[in-house]
Each structure stands twice: as structure tokens, then as C-alpha cells.
């Protein structure tokens, strides 16, 4: 006997999370099926809406103004500017530690390679680092942390013409960390403010020892940036201690995987899902589905099944949301011959010759970056003839096609906006 829900969401990333949240808030009984850790750990934790307008070289100051300029097949055109605003309002409500909602404008944030990038929302921990703030900055890197070279990042920011002076210093992180310590080890030392041995042989608590190591490099800087390792459980307290000791604000520079800001965002999302009463089933992949036997003209899905140690366990629902991710999250798969959506075998438009899937330039116009499902105006995936694949299936997030989130810097925003819209529409359809 299948486990029954009103709405089943397949996929536990931003899109699936916001779909489940929207449906639950509309009063639906929701179950979220999530296989692996979401790709949020791979992301910097910055929440982009739209960083670049089409056919424009520079970053877009206002993402909401740029959305109507996007091509028709773009998922933002399906949900509309109001849909994006509505979803971002929910995001702002459930993620207290994010900033940027005070304005429609994008912020320019320094990232770990020293490039600045436009983004709509940023963690509070990164707020003092925005590049339009003209306070002089010091960036601090740690000798053994190869992902962030502070002097290089500082010089790179100056090359971009930032309106402040910025310098970089590399210091030894106090404490006996191995050369290959994970970012979580740094975070834990700071979270727990563990006593560590300083270079002079004295024993001090980690936060104070770190501040002392940074102090000689301050040289009039009005803010200090660190790689994003400043605490996992209580990053605000870590920043506050460092800021108090240094006498200037402290910020984190977003980094690549494994990304603590990305993991913190995932924590916030799961807390919100919990609070909204969403049931979760994690750790097993959805491998198959059962069509509804009613013989309606448009097909319906009766249930999906997960594979739990070889046993097939069905989850039945009235409405389904597919939010399994794109090529990275494996919501879109491929072999030498074709590109496919593995759970429902929804239609994925693509050239038959795989040599047409990419551009020869590393940052060229790649078809593969836009691989995904086309949908109707209600986010229902369309088959090759343009009809809905299933009457009760909607799709959200990077499983959708028709946009290149990496080039336009829109990944989180599309996931949040389409997730929210798909979840709300699913709940609506249940009633």
C-alpha cells in the first residue's frame, strides 16, 4: 500500500524545498523525497536572482528590471516578475541570516578568486564585504587554505576598480591544524573558541589568537575579510568577537565547495520545512513511477517509488513536483546518444550530434548549460509535441531548460521562484 500525500516533491535542493514550503503553507499535506545532499554545499551561499541582462556586458544593477528582457522560454518568463518577487519574499521570511532585501538592486560581492559578482541576497556574514561600500579593506588568508589567496584576491579586486583600497595578508591560522584541515575544522575551532597554542608558545583562545595575528596587518583598514570559515554553529558570535577585538567590522568572502554558507542556507531551509510540517524521506533515490490507471486523455502519475536497499517503496499523491536538479544534480542525465530526464523520461530537447552540445570556448555559449525540460505556463513539462507530459506533474529548478544560470547568475533565484510557483500551483490543484 502506497504512502499517501496530497503533494509529493521529488528533490531536496532549493527548488524542491521552496516547492514543498509553498505547498505546505497553502495547507497541503506535503512529502519531500530527497536522495543525496543538495548541491548547496557546492554553491557559494550567495543567492542570485539575475546578475546579467541578456545581450549586456556589465552586471545588471536591477534584476527585476532585467527579467522582462529575457527570452520567452526562460523560466522567469513563466513565473513572471511578480512570481519572482513573491518567492523572494518567502525566502527573506525564512532566512533571517540573509541581507539584500532592503533594495531591488544587486550587490557586488567579492568571491574567493578575487572576482566580484552581482547577487541579490547575501549572508549577513558577507554584508560588510560588499564592493560598493567604500571603506578600505584588508583580506586575510590562511597559509594552508589553498582556496583563498588573500594578496591575489586583493590585487584582483583593485584590478576591477573597486572604490576602496584593499590589501591582502596571509597568516598562519593559530592552532595545530594539519595542512589539509577541512573548512569545518577551522569553523569548529572558532565556534568553540578552543584554546590553541600561539607562535610564541602561549595558550590563548582561538578567536583572540586569530585577531592578534591579524592586527599587525590592519594598517588603517576599516573592515577585514576572511575566507568563509568563521564558524558553523554560531558564525555571528565568531564575527562579533573578531570585530570587537579588531575594532572594525569583519566579513566572510564566499568560497567554493565545500561551502559553509551554502550548508548554513540548507540548514535554514530544512528548519523552515520542518516548521511548515513537511514530511521528509531522505537518503534514497526515486527510481520509478506508476501511471494512473484511469485512462484519462492526459496521463496522470499515481505514485513514484524510491529504492530502499533494493526494495521499491511507493509514494502516492494527487500532485507531483519534479525538482531533481540539472546535469550537476543528475536530474538530467545523458549518454553518448541522448539527453534524458531519468525519473519520468520527460522530453529534453537536444541536438542529436553530441558535438553540438558545447561551444569550443571554455566560457562560450554552451547548449548543455540550457539542457532541461520545457514547460507550459503552469510549469508542467511538455512532450515533444508540445502537450503536457502528465496532467499532475510540475517541474522546478535546474531540471528546467531554457536558461544558463551560470552565465546569467540566476541559479538560486530560478530555483526559489519556480519552486515556489510549482508548489503553490500543486497545492491549488489539490483543492
Amino acid at each position, binding site marked *: 500500500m502506497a504512502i499517501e500525500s496530497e503533494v509529493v516533491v521529488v528533490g531536496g535542493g532549493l527548488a524542491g524545498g521552496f516547492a514543498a514550503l509553498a505547498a505546505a503553507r497553502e495547507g497541503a499535506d506535503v512529502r519531500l523525497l530527497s536522495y543525496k545532499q543538495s548541491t548547496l554545499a557546492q*554553491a557559494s551561499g550567495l543567492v542570485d536572482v539575475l546578475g546579467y541582462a541578456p545581450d549586456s556586458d556589465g552586471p545588471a544593477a536591477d534584476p527585476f528590471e532585467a527579467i522582462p528582457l529575457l527570452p520567452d522560454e526562460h523560466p522567469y518568463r513563466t513565473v513572471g516578475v511578480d512570481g519572482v518577487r513573491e518567492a523572494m519574499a518567502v525566502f*527573506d521570511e525564512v532566512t533571517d541570516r540573509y541581507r539584500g532585501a532592503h533594495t531591488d538592486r544587486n550587490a557586488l560581492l567579492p568571491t*574567493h578568486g578575487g572576482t566580484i559578482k552581482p547577487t541579490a541576497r547575501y549572508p549577513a556574514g558577507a554584508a*560588510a564585504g*560588499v564592493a560598493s561600500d567604500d571603506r578600505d579593506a584588508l583580506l586575510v588568508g590562511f597559509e594552508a587554505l589553498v582556496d583563498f589567496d588573500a594578496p591575489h584576491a586583493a590585487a584582483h579586486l583593485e584590478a576591477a*576598480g573597486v572604490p576602496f583600497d584593499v590589501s591582502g595578508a596571509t597568516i598562519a591560522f593559530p592552532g595545530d591544524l594539519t595542512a589539509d584541515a577541512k573548512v569545518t575544522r577551522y569553523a569548529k575551532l572558532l565556534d568553540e573558541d578552543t584554546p590553541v597554542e600561539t607562535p610564541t608558545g602561549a595558550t590563548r583562545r582561538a578567536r583572540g589568537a586569530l585577531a592578534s595575528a591579524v592586527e599587525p596587518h590592519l594598517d588603517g583598514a576599516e573592515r577585514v575579510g576572511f575566507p568563509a570559515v568563521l564558524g558553523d554553529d554560531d558564525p555571528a*558570535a565568531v564575527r562579533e568577537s573578531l570585530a570587537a577585538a579588531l575594532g572594525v567590522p569583519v566579513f566572510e568572502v564566499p568560497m567554493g565547495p565545500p561551502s559553509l554558507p551554502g550548508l548554513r542556507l540548507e540548514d535554514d531551509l530544512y528548519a523552515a520545512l520542518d516548521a511548515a510540517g513537511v514530511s521528509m524521506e531522505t537518503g534514497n533515490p526515486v527510481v520509478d513511477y506508476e501511471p494512473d490507471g484511469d485512462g484519462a486523455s492526459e496521463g496522470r502519475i499515481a505514485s513514484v517509488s524510491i529504492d530502499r536497499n533494493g526494495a521499491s517503496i511507493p509514494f502516492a499523491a494527487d500532485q507531483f513536483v519534479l525538482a531533481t536538479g540539472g546535469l*550537476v544534480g543528475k536530474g538530467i542525465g545523458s549518454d553518448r546518444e541522448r539527453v534524458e530526464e531519468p525519473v519520468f523520461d520527460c522530453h529534453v530537447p537536444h541536438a542529436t550530434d553530441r558535438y553540438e552540445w558545447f561551444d569550443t570556448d571554455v566560457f562560450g555559449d554552451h547548449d548543455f548549460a540550457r539542457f532541461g525540460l520545457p514547460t507550459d505556463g503552469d510549469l508542467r513539462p511538455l512532450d515533444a509535441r508540445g502537450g503536457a507530459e502528465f496532467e499532475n506533474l510540475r517541474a522546478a529548478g535546474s531540471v528546467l531548460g531554457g536558461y544558463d544560470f551560470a552565465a546569467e*547568475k540566476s541559479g538560486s533565484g530560478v530555483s526559489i521562484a519556480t519552486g515556489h510557483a510549482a508548489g503553490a500551483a500543486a497545492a491549488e490543484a489539490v483543492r
Partner: protein
Amino acid sequence: MRGFDVTLVEQGNLTHGTTGRMHGLLHSGGRYAVSDQSSARECIEENRVLRDIASHCVEETGGLFVKRPEDDEEYFQEKLEGCETCGIPAEVLSGAEARAMEPHLAEAIDKAIWVPDGAVDPFRLVVANAASAVEHGARVETHSEVTDLLVDNGEIVGVEVEHASGPGLRVHGTEGGREEIRADHVVNATGAWAGQIGDMAGVDIEVRPSKGVMTIMNVRQVDTVINRCRPKGDADIVVPHETTAILGTTDEEVDDPEDYPEERWEVDMMIDTLSELIPALEDARTIRSFWGVRPLYEPPDVGSTDPTDITRDFFLLDHDDRDDLPGMTSIVGGKFTTYRMMAEQISDHVCDRFGVDAACRTADVPLPGSEDFSVLRDYMDEFGLQSPIGRRSVERLGSRADEVLDTDGPNPVVCNCEAVTRAEVQDAIEGSGSDLNAVRIRTRATMGNCQGGFCAHRLAGELEDRYDEPTVREAWDELLQERWTGQRHALWGQQLSQAMLNYALHATTQNRDRDPADAPESVDFAAFDAGPTEAAERPGAGDTGVATDGGRDGD
């Protein structure tokens, strides 16, 4: 080593041409034991020499010639006899014995011949040769293309080169320039490019460049070189190489060694045909493909139509005797395994010309990295490295491990896929300038599963101590493009997912595709959010659950 004052010029990085684009097979000679026995004899001889003088570049994998039921039994026997005739140790194994050695071999394989094939790292080997030359007083100029031969009174008296970035180590942004290098004798050892050099002095050198594809798998399906035991054909070899296995190859004559099609059918053929030997290849992940151009040479009177019929032997062309043009000798044809023997012959030739008596010692003197090589000590503890990383570092560095790994300060891993530490990267930068592709071939950094997705920016960061920011940025972008070029031939399945992840990491998190620092127009910073107001950003707010700025003021 024999007393000459020598300058080596190379148009790109060391190994830029064919050498860096080979399958990594150290031939036992078994492949030529039937069709080309003189090449086979040279191969086994040099195979033994290289195990000795370049042990840190060679992995003694052994090789198998495997036979499927449809492959000719008579040829199998000829192969066995050929090995015996050429002095190549060979041993017949049953299908079951072969599968016990290599469990992924197809059930259908009915027997095999074991031979002492090996795997060799061409990058490490060439860098060691160049380092040895420098130790002996040679000047080595990379990224220095020969633009002309200097001819005076009917004699070649030197070359004109174009330095991409000034003489010495390559540094991006350094102004290049032309240089005339005068020499008593010019050696043309440019392989598939030998004809182009000859053209500069109006002499015909009939190289017959032939392309071949190599497809790299992300893991080693086999630890032994697997050859198919049949007369000749495409897609008949798998060579284990470091963390990967390399499938090869095709053999198609091309007109221009720098401009030829890299075709889908070639990659498909590697996978489809070699799956007959190792079925697991069918669904395995490939990380990239690359093509090399064989520098085949055939005396003009032979006239082979099929490139697979052209000999793998090498030829010394004395242009004085041949073309009445003294001052230059070309060495053409041949193959990687016999590179040292080719060098010995041409050196003998030059010595003979100048009346130098010193004997060649390259077959006996170990290369840097293989001197007094014993890895019995516990390098891992000594250098504070985790054991698998320490082991791989020491394998790569050989006898140079002490010199390279003994550094002040922490020595974190920079490239996780290939376990390359900062010390190795810094050593490579010292040897090759700001060129991260040169660092790559010296260390293997970015050559694993992720193809630089997670470490390209780290390598850029490692340049920071010595080079300014624009130089670092240019080197970084050049590395990203180089890594992309080979991956394009592997874009399906898991590697397409990896490619999308890399693209997302680089374009999204690092905004490498639209870096404002690269843009001609500066950004109007004042048009963007300058951060929440002080009041909204009370210390401690936010992470503690107090919403302070959920409102929207519409700016």
C-alpha cells in the same frame, strides 16, 4: 655531456608536439615483433635503458597481447616467435590466467602473451632530460618558435626564433622578441614539423604526419598494458597511466600537424572496439580525449599508401650529403620509446663532424629524479604528508623528493584528484615560469577526474608570490581553456555533469566568464547595493533569529 655548447628551442611547452600527445606506452617491442623487427629490437633495448636511467618516469606494468576467438591463431604464433627472435621476453597465458591478472578482461579472451611493456610519463621524462641538459650547461628556451633558418654562403649558420615572452622562463605579459641564434650546427628534431623547418632552407623532408586519438578513462580498468593480438588495426591498446587508463588509437594521414579534424567517430571507436576486450569500458567514464600526430617518415621511393604500413623506424638526414646544404642534420621518424637512441645517433653524427671523441653516456647516466633512487624511507612522516599523498609525490619526484618536499611552512594539497602538494607546484613554477600548463605537465595537477574544476583557482593563487595579478589572471584563464579543449570529447554522462559543475563553479562562484576586471568598461559601483544600513546590521542580528530587515523599500 660531450662538450658542446648547446641551445634547445621549443615552440611551445616542453612536449608541446607529439611527445606530450602519446599514449604513455613504453614499448617492449611486442607490437612490432611481426611486422617491423628492427623497430622491435630497438624498443626492447631502449625499454631496458629507460627502466634504468628514468625509473621515476616508468611504471613496470607488463603488457598482454590478448586474443579473442575471432582473432587469427596463426598470427598469435607469429607474434610469439617474433618476440623470441627479437629477444623480447614472452610468456603464453591461458584466458583464465590472463583474467586472474586482469579481472576486467572479457570472458571471450582465450589466451594471451605476456611481454615487458611498461607505462611511461612523457612529461616527467622530457622535463628530466631538459633538467639534465641544463645541469650540463645547455640553454633551454621554451615558447620560442623557429621562424627562419639563417643561411650564409650556402651553409646553415643558425636559426631565428620568436620568443613569446622574452628569453628565459615563460612569464605572461612579458614582451617577446626575435633572436638570432648562431650555431656551428643545427639539429632539426622537430618530428612532424621537420618538413616545415626544411622548407625554410628549401630542402624537402618528406614527413608523413598521421593523427591518432587517445581517450582517457577516469580510472584504471587495468593495471597491465592490454594489446589486441591481431595484425594491425585501430583501437587495439589500453595503457594504464597514473590514475587513468588511456585507450588508443587511430592512424590517419593528415596534411598539417597543427590543423586536422578531431572526430567523433574516433572517440566512439575507441570505446566500442576496446569494449570487446574490456566490457567495462562501454559504460565507463572518460575524462577527455586528445590527438597526437605521429612524425612518420618514409624515404620517397617507398610510396606506402596506408599510414599503418609506414615504418616506425627513424632516419638521419645529413643535409650536406643529401642536399648540398651543410650546417644542419635532421632526425625523422622513430618513436617515443627509442627517443634516446635517436638522440645518441644524431649526437654521434655531430661529434663525428666536429672531431669530438667523447663517448655517449646517456644510456648509463641516470636522469635527475632517478639518481640513487630508493624510496625505502618513510617520506610521509618526514614531510607531514598523509600517506597516499606522500607516496604519489615521491613516485613523481623520485630522487628529487628531499629537495622539493623539504619546505618551510605547511604543505597543503593543491590538486586533490592527483594528490599534488604546494611544494611540488612551487618547484614546478620555479622551473617553468608563470605558465600553469607547464606546471600541469610537471606535476599532473588538474589532470584527474575534475580536470581543474576544483583547483585551477588554487594554482593561480600559488603563482601570486612571484607574479603580479594580471599575469596570474592570464595564466589562470589559459589553463581553464586548455583543460576545456580535451574535455569536449568526453561530454556525456558523468563527465558532462562534471563539466557543468566546473562551469558553474568557475562562472557562478568565481564569475570567471564575466570578470569585471577583464571588462573594458569599469563598473558603476554606486549603482549597486552598498550594504544594509548600520541600524539593520546590528552585530549579532540575523544568525540569532531576529529578523531586522525583512522589509523592502524598493530603493
